[in-house]
């Protein structure tokens, strides 16, 4: 049973509906089967689309013959790479994808051709009739392969190392920092790739209205309708104004539906070619190939310490296995080095990162995007350092915490930071001091912390435009409709929007109508990624609602003769705060405002303050605020079998302010769940470049039976820039749980598994090595040789340039 520091029904101080626990406005539609997801859409004359995928890991396409497929009765359209030759990619610096492979294939499962047919069976038959001649190339299957100079380049001609992105940064005098250290430590870690496994398989439907209007509509289970809109315009060479993208409610995303995908582009083109609606729904196996999940990352962390347990320097080196395409990779690479510094005061810091391409499904953003891997490494490393220095793992963290309202060495602006309180809460609640090192053999506790962005400070393509806009329309009858391009992926953005608007207007969330995620109907929101929606769309919604309230107040003030500053909106009324009898109900107030303040239309916008530091790569990491989390995990580890049974998780999260407590706790518990899966079982496992486990049965994830009880604690630091003080909760709580599991295993049985997933075989192997007097550890022993080049040297930030926010 999830518990909190406050009773569930207590609203946040000074608010009526913000801080409450009312059911999400979309909950009942979801529980009755009414919610229409992308695959639930059925249009008259609709065709079914299917993709032919590469059977090879790496190869040249010598010839494609679609004549037999095209001739099959019931087949209405067939596409190959030549039909969609324009490259695209989510990031401007990584425009390296074709909707269908052109000239070469880069991974087993890459789309090569597409068909649209009268039904699924006919479409499948058509795929079997497409003849493709390949010439296989030597595959690149791992980071080690990618570092070899003699394998064929995946992106380019000839042979060489598969370097996709490289970044080397040095902040302050790192050599000096290590010289000042009494002790220096170094560890290697590996984080295996894993995938989102959303329950909903990706789906898209496209419809074309013929020329002269020539308008395309695409419904898709996407987290990023705006970026899909841009991609379709580019690849199809259509003016954006002729394309309407509607993101349908997303049946689980976790980052896996944040790229533009082949099936979306192919659905659109096939609808244009055939003149009929076309639907693509990926099979579960195809979802594993579409991927964009957690990068496998090999890491080296070096730190310098004073005897008193004070950090003097950190050098962090990463190698990311990116799979076959760029995707979000340039950002992912920098994220493996960006946020180490926002939890601890790192006085001097060096980061070296490289992302390589391999012949595997492309990696991208999964919950925590690029930060769970280094967080795992750093928090396990700290545990080892603490043990060596004879300091409690909780205390070594408390001793090195970053201060609220400070700048990190790599120019991240920290505002509110409740990390100290989070640590103290889980320390006390878990009985840490009575348990650590004192539980019977086979039982242990571990601690770790983490931090995450409340929205990437910069948009994916650099521009100075709003990152989110919200419109509000009030009907003459009093109905309020909110318009936002934000898409609910289960994180609760719909309910967040109606809650903050209801709070400002003195209404209830269920009174507010909502139109979302439609590029024709709703103003911009960049998408549901980087935990940005509450902070950015929430602020825009608050501003739009305040402007609407101002209009209604002006009208009511004129009508009743009450000064505007005395008016209050609450419980469906507008009234004089000094004399609540004087006032009127919302519908009457709206009727007056419709006369005195037309039109009852308002809008709000949000753009993050300028936060990026003065260096290349500084665009990754800055955020208008950071959430903070601390966690303690207690588990049992069977030394015979290596099986780990997590029994309880304590987790405290600095949420700023909970907009809805049930939703916030749901995100925390869901993050704990996903973290436990990654820590113990989940891996995108390959054999010679072929994915071994592209099914739900083989890709093992936790069920009800593996999920422990979780005690959650909310820390409310009231962020000065967040809507009602709110920060993010969708991703941050995942971060500390994975290293806390690894650290608890060490406490339980005295071995280190410096590699996730921590499967039973690795635990047993480490225990066997310990019994043989060898190093009681399983994990990487070396990193491939690689020259990261000279670092860009960055001066420490000037504290005077802190920005607009002043500590309260």
């Amino acid at each position, binding site marked *: *049973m*999830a518990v909190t520091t406050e009773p569930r029904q207590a609203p946040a101080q000074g608010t009526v509906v913000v801080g409450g626990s009312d*059911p*999400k406005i*979309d*909950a*009942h539609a*979801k*529980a*009755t*089967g*009414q*919610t*229409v*997801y992308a*695959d*639930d859409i*059925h249009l008259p004359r609709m065709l079914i689309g299917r993709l032919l995928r590469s059977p090879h890991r790496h190869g040249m396409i010598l010839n494609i013959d679609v004549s037999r497929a095209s001739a*099959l*009765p*019931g087949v209405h359209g067939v596409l190959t790479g030549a039909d969609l030759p324009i490259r695209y990619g989510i990031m401007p610096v990584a425009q390296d994808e074709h909707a269908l492979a052109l000239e070469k294939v880069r991974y087993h499962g890459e789309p090569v051709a597409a068909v649209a*047919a*009268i*039904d699924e*069976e*006919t479409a499948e*038959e058509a795929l079997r009739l497409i003849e493709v001649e390949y010439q296989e190339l030597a595959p690149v299957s791992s980071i080690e392969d990618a570092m070899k100079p003699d394998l064929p380049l995946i992106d380019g001609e000839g042979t060489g190392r598969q370097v996709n992105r490289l970044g080397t940064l040095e902040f302050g005098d790192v050599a000096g920092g290590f010289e000042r250290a009494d002790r220096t430590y170094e560890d290697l870690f590996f984080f295996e790739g894993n995938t989102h496994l*959303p*329950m*909903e*398989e990706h789906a898209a439907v496209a419809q074309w209205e013929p020329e002269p209007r020539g308008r395309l509509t695409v419904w898709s289970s996407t987290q990023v309708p705006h970026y899909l809109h841009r991609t379709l315009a580019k690849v199809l060479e259509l003016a954006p104004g002729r394309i309407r993208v509607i993101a349908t*409610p*997303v*049946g*689980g*995303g*976790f980052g896996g539906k944040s790229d533009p995908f082949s099936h979306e582009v192919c659905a659109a083109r096939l609808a244009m070619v055939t003149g009929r609606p076309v639907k693509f729904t990926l099979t*579960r196996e195809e979802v594993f190939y579409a991927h964009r999940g957690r990068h496998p990352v090999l890491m080296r962390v070096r730190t310098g310490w004073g005897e008193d347990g004070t950090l003097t320097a950190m050098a962090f080196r990463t190698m990311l296995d990116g799979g076959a395409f760029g995707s979000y990779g340039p950002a992912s690479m920098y994220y493996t080095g960006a946020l180490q510094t926002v939890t601890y005061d790192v006085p001097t810091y060096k980061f070296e990162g490289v992302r390589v391409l391999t012949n595997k499904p492309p990696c991208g953003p999964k919950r925590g995007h690029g930060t769970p891997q280094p967080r795992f490494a750093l928090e396990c490393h700290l545990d080892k350092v603490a043990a060596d220095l004879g300091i409690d793992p909780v205390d070594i963290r408390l001793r090195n915490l970053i201060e609220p309202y400070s700048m990190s060495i790599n120019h991240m602006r920290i505002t509110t930071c409740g990390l100290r309180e989070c640590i103290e809460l889980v320390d006390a609640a878990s009985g840490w001091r009575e348990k650590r090192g004192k539980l019977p053999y086979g039982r242990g506790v571990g601690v770790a912390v983490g931090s995450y962005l409340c929205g990437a400070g910069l948009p994916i393509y650099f521009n100075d435009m709003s990152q989110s806009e919200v419109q509000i329309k009030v009907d003459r009858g009093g109905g309020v409709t909110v318009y936002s391009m934000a898409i609910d992926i*289960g*994180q*609760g953005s719909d309910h967040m929007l109606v809650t903050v608007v209801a709070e400002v207007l003195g209404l209830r969330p269920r009174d507010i109508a909502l139109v979302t995620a439609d590029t024709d109907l709703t103003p911009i929101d960049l998408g549901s990624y980087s935990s940005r929606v509450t902070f950015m769309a929430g602020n825009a919604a608050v501003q739009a609602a305040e402007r609407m309230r101002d209009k209604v107040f002006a009208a009511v003030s004129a009508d009743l003769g009450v000064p505007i500053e005395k008016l209050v909106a609450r419980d469906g009324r507008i009234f004089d705060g000094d004399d609540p009898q004087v006032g009127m109900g919302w519908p009457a107030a709206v009727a007056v405002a419709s006369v005195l303040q037309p039109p009852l239309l308002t809008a709000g916008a949000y753009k993050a303050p300028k936060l990026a530091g003065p260096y290349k790569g500084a665009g990754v990491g800055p955020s208008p605020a950071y959430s903070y989390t601390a966690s303690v995990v207690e588990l049992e580890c069977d030394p015979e079998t290596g099986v780990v049974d997590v029994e309880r998780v304590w987790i405290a999260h600095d949420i700023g302010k909970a907009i809805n407590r*049930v*939703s916030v*706790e*749901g995100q925390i*518990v*869901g993050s*704990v*769940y*996903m973290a436990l899966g990654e820590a113990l079982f989940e891996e995108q496992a390959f054999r010679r470049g072929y994915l071994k486990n592209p*099914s*739900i*049965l083989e890709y093992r*994830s936790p*069920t*009800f*039976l593996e*999920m422990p*009880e*979780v005690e959650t604690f909310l820390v409310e630091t009231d962020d000065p820039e967040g809507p009602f003080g709110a920060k993010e909760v969708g991703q941050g709580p995942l971060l500390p749980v994975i290293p806390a599991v690894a650290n608890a295993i060490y406490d339980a049985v005295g071995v280190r598994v410096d590699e996730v997933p921590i499967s039973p075989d690795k635990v047993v192997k480490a225990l066997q090595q310990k019994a043989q007097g060898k190093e009681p550890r399983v994990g990487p022993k070396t990193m491939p040789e690689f020259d990261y080049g000279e670092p860009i040297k960055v001066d420490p930030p000037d504290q005077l340039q802190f920005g607009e926010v002043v500590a309260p």
Partner: protein
Amino acid sequence: MAVTSTSKQLVALNINGDAYELAISPTHTLLEVLREDARLTGTKHGCEQGECGLCTILLDGRPQFSCLTLAIEAQGSEIRTVEGLARGGELHPLQQAFGETGASQCGYCSPGMLMSAQALLERNPSPSRNEIKEALAGNLCRCTGYLAIIDAVELAAARMRSAA
């Protein structure tokens, strides 16, 4: 006309108390027929291999993966889907509780989860937390971490007992 289609067969299905007469391909699963022929898209799919539990429906009160059931096999049985859970305009206690505890985030697993939970409560009105976990272990959810679902089933069970 699709070359690969086998000739269709007329089936009579009782779905949520409604009589359906549908011309279907005999190779189609109950999941396909529910979604594509009866247009009851409340029932979801996540694997079509019996691994995720999303497509769970009740067949004569027993939870069943509709992706592993041929539609023609379901003739003569009472089929119950998520669309048949609410009574008229009133939500089923499980649906109500799912909203209150936050048991639906993305909501994609909810239809199958609700049907498994309903089957549990029909045979055991007072399940323990462990009994709930065991009964629902074949239904995967990626969002909630399951605890809110257990809370919802407990809450609904308590209300259904006190109403009974």
